[in-house]
């Protein structure tokens, strides 16, 4: 009788142990799945950021100023221009801002600005605002002067 009770208790303990292990395994799997999904989401967000016009444009600005010859710079200029609705898209450069008043340099066009980067080999203006049309092409660019 006692032996039967002990056997029953042992089986119950083993079942409880097994159930606990299964629960822990399921929990670990759920945590890993959630981690994988979060990483995937971050990857997608980073990819979206990479492809955003401002990011792409910043990369072209660096490529143009860093070009070691005119051909490479011109290639980068032509690629950068594909992001714009036209080569005559206006570029505004904010030189200072105080009390809600923005002071601008003389407005230019994106074609002239890209050539300016090629000639001067300096990229001191930060991209502060990009306006796009319904097809995602840039229609106006605002830069902010940053004397580093």
């Amino acid at each position, binding site marked *: 009788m006692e032996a039967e009770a002990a056997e029953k208790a042992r089986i119950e303990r083993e079942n409880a142990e097994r159930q606990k292990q299964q629960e822990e395994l399921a929990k670990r799997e759920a945590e890993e799945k959630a981690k994988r999904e979060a990483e995937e989401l971050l990857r997608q967000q980073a990819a979206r950021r990479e492809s955003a016009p401002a990011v792409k444009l910043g990369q072209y600005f660096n490529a143009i100023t860093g070009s070691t010859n005119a051909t490479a710079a011109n290639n980068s200029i032509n690629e950068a221009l594909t992001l714009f609705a036209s080569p005559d898209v*206006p570029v*505004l450069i904010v030189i200072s801002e105080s009390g809600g008043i923005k*002071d601008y340099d*003389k407005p230019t066009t994106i074609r002239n600005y890209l050539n300016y980067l090629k000639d001067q080999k300096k990229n001191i203006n930060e991209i502060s605002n990009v306006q796009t049309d319904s097809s995602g092409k840039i229609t106006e660019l605002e830069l902010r002067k940053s004397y580093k």
Partner: protein
Amino acid sequence: MFNNRYKCGTFLLLFCSLSLLNLQAQTADISPERKQAIDSLALEKVRDLSKYISIIGNKKTAFSEATRVMDRAEELFAPDSEMGVSSLNRKEVNYYKVRKYFERLMALNYDRVTIQWYNIHYISDLERQPDGRYVGVITIYQRFEGESDDGLKYKDTTKKDITIYVDRKKTQIQGRMIEFWDVLLGDIRVTETGA
């Protein structure tokens, strides 16, 4: 007697009017932060010109590129501005319209030309004029070196003063009125020439 009083009154009225104009000019002054930004912008335009001049003078620059750069460099200047050119071989300084100067620079009879500007600084701060325009003077030092394959060499250092004009202007961009600071370079005068 009456005539003297009349003259005195007229003088006082004129003096008061001038004082009022001066006061208006002072109150229209901009904050030190905004002024600093304009000062920096003008210095940057001079540095831009320095780079354009070195590109135009460089014998490795393709003709089409040099022509495009000349157009951009010319845009930095007020109409009819002149550039002074000196030489260790003559006393007088010749002055050319800036476009002519760029064309002569590109056609210089050397195989290698290097031009560097340095020590670029204000010698006369931008000051607001009665017409609202700001005028100042920036000084630069230019090191010129020309060398030919047949051994011809010429080097000099010149000090040049550049008059700077800054004007507040408006333009319409995509239906919006944008006010901007238009920085233009004026005459560039040679003040010293040495080896």
